[in-house]
């Protein structure tokens, strides 16, 4: 048996100190009929090597592909130094910093993370993380309902289908009505079509949107604010924030986003890290942990969890959210990544991704049987194409050549584009790989 620490002699001594004759005495409160007489039907114990071999074999059954898929999870390089620090026991074997005097490492890193999220989003305050982009978006909507005391939510344009599904799960027990506004012909939101009334709590808009297109946030904000509604910008691709105007700069009230591309590998979709930032006036309504600076008894700067009266451990059923455990280590990974690559490095990552995407788009435009879904609308590093050939057969052919040729939009029936492929590009993709993608799409 692994990880146990007692010898038979230890057990004897301990039982004696307890005044028990055997381990079974310690289970006296459990009705006898509930005590299992037989071992569970589980496999026999494995040694560390046997477990390593077994789990490695499972990992090897997943195909290692050149990744052109995005849709909220992106294949960026994580600096070696980020994972090196992440493996420090001091960080990963600690828990939520309940005793701040012995948790300054975790607390200071969260304070730095909050600052970075504010810088990226252009907003005043940020929290210590939510589970992922989808749940961060749901939490933002819950906050808007609470702030405005209104019940109506508008999902505008191409919001990630999984994000709207999670939102609907989260609000199914509430008296919230969720309306969706389809995008206009260009694939983006037409602000004039927004059915905003004085009953609207918030408008949710993703930027860049699910198809990678850049939204005009200004007019949406203007319309929403004129009716007292909040605007939540969902950011599934935070690398874009290095280049395009921040939501905060355009008047958005809350950003709920995905931080995975910073320091976190794709991990089959989790663990990743949900970002949450807002205008300062909403801080007391925000979900999740927030770290603040203060002083110790000797006047030295230090950090603590603050505004905890918002949270479930104090406020119970009146808490702003039920979240407790968050994605702390993933937030640290993001902090490390952003610190390591820095201001210029993030710009470089974003720009290389953009150049790769636009090079690919220029080549795919030339292919017979392919067209950009929204050729006239600006995009950042992800775009959708319409294919004459069934996207399933394209994806199958590509896998044989070691390529993940994007995300099949037919996965999302509500989009109404069964013949679509969504392609994403990161700084890791080379010209040769992109050319291979183009050849594969063309059937060559």
């Amino acid at each position, binding site marked *: 048996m*692994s*990880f146990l*620490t*007692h010898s038979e002699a230890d057990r004897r001594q301990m*039982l004696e*100190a307890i005044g028990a004759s055997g381990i079974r005495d310690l289970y006296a409160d*459990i009705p006898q009929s509930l*005590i299992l007489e037989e071992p569970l039907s589980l496999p*026999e*114990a494995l*040694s*560390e090597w046997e477990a390593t071999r077994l789990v490695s*074999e499972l*990992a*090897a*059954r997943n195909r*290692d592909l050149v990744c052109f898929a995005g849709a*909220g999870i992106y294949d960026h*390089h994580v600096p070696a130094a980020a*994972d*090196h*620090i992440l493996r420090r026991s001091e*960080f990963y074997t600690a828990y939520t910093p*309940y005793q701040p*005097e*012995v*948790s300054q490492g975790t607390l200071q890193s969260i304070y730095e993370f909050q600052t970075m999220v504010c*810088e990226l989003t252009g907003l*005043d*305050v940020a929290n210590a993380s939510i589970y992922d982009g*989808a749940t961060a978006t749901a939490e933002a909507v819950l906050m808007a309902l609470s702030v405005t005391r209104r019940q109506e939510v508008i999902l505008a344009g191409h919001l*990630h289908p*999984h994000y709207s599904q999670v939102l609907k*799960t*989260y609000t199914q027990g509430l008296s919230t009505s969720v309306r969706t506004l389809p995008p206009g012909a260009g694939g983006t939101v037409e602000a004039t079509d927004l059915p905003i009334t004085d009953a609207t709590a918030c408008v949710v808009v993703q930027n860049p949107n699910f198809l990678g297109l850049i939204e005009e946030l200004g007019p949406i904000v203007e319309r929403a604010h004129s009716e007292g509604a909040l605007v939540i910008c969902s950011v599934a691709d935070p690398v874009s924030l290095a280049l395009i105007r921040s939501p905060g700069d355009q008047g958005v009230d809350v950003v709920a986003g995905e931080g995975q591309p910073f320091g976190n*590998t794709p991990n*089959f979709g*989790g*663990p990743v890290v949900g970002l949450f930032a807002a205008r*300062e006036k909403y801080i007391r309504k925000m979900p999740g942990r927030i770290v603040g600076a*203060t002083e*110790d*008894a000797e006047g030295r700067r230090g950090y603590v969890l603050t*505004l905890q009266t918002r949270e*479930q*451990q104090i*406020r119970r059923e*009146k808490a702003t*959210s*039920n979240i*407790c455990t968050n994605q702390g*280590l993933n937030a640290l990974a993001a902090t490390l990544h952003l*610190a*390591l690559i820095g*201001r*210029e490095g993030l710009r470089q*990552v974003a720009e290389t991704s*953009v150049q790769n995407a636009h090079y690919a788009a220029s080549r795919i435009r030339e292919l017979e049987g392919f067209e950009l879904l929204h050729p006239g609308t600006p995009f950042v590093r992800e775009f959708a194409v319409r294919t004459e050939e069934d996207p399933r057969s394209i994806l199958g052919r590509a896998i044989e050549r070691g390529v993940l040729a994007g*995300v099949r939009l037919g996965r999302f029936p509500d989009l109404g584009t069964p013949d679509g492929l969504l392609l994403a590009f990161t*700084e890791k993709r080379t010209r040769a790989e992109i050319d291979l993608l183009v050849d594969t799409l063309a059937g060559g």
Partner: protein
Amino acid sequence: MSLVPFPFKSGTTPTIFERSQPGRTGTAMTRPDVPTRPLPELIPQRHLRASPPRLPEVPEHEVVRHYTEISLKNHHVDRALYPLGSCTMKHNPKVNEQLARLSGFAGLHPFTPVGAVQGALGLMYELGQLLVEIAGMDACSLQPAAGAQGELTGVLLMRAYHQSRGEAGRRRVLIPDSAHGTNPATVALAGFEVVELKSNEAGRLSVRALREALDDRVAGLMLTNPNTLGVFESAILEISELVHQAGGLMYMDGANLNALTGVARPGDMGYDIVHFNLHKTFSTPHGGGGPGAGPVAVRSHLEPFLPMPTVAADGGGYVLDWDRPLSIGRVHGFYGNFGVLVRAYTFIRMLGRSGIREMAEAAVLNNAYLSARLEERFPLPYGRGMHESVFSGTELKRRTGVKTLDVAKRLLDYGFHAPTVYFPLIVSEALMTEPTETETKEELDRYVEALLSIAAEAEEDPEIVTAAPHVTPVRRLDEGRAGRELDVRWHFPGEPREG
């Protein structure tokens, strides 16, 4: 007993932003090798950011030093005992870290077609089966990202179940007063009403109070078992029967499952729904606050309502099952915290059939030993718990003026983390202590010695305790000030502080 000062660099470390100098660069990033065009030709100028986010400009070596330095200010499981009650801070096996980082897992994109992710789906399917067997349930969803999300899933399952039976009027969830705060917070989030039940003098749910609360408005009972006092709800069979007779469902918060694995099963106790905390019971690291994973297992009558997609076996392979018309829907952007699932799977396979039981037995043994050694000095108002016990500092406070908070802070000087304090709410001056199975007798003895030493200090020189901690990287921090004068992000020089 001697104090254990932190090794190096106490006091304030400047933020990473203060280490930044314009023009310095960190880890080199890749430039494009495709033909490029000026950015404004690709993205119209009106969409482009005027100034970049003010991320730090620091060389790689300095970044490594910065985070190494601040890391050394953390207490952590690899340093010494971390006895937070109901948090199960056990050893995090190192092999788990290695395996979760295999490129076949870490590099896997969630939108990869299922034919190319059979290893991942197989691992998820098998983990689900293992958890179902351990809990005595019938089906499982691995999607919830943490315990609180498992709870939300569970309460939404109750809702969907009652609605499917034309009983949408059942909107009350019963919760004992000893429950974790996430229980009532979750019920409110699901749009349900919390009804709090008083515990009896033994620290257990009062069956009389339960009987009085049960009617056709009740959706179910959320009951942690052993409860947050570490006390097993010995009337559980009667409780389950009463709740079921009244048409309600039984939900088990699995925070304390570490006491029970391989010994007794929630399913046999009459629970309909249970969530696991893989970051507690199954050894995955707590990561300074997360990630966790909160899979939910159910009896068969709730299976149709589980979040989608679920993983199903199909012939020789595995598929994602989307055809679930009664499902409560999706609770996570993808399939949950998959990397955490890899670690928990590895752990359970290493423990195996007998290890899973020995784990619980050793956790209970360790706590009984700790309780027996401390109960004379620190009374246990509700007796010795199973995997955790809740001591009370009331008597110490009355005699010496030293509060539980002070004891907790003084423990930090002795090189330990403090237990969970002032929780559960029904014990005054509570010290909720959970040693877990991976601590040696010697480590427990050292902890006992530290607490006894603190109790002696409280009698002889209380100020040394009330002014603690003394040898930590910072002294006691002013939490009130942090709330009054909010400073939740670095402000760059020259930038006005916001009101």
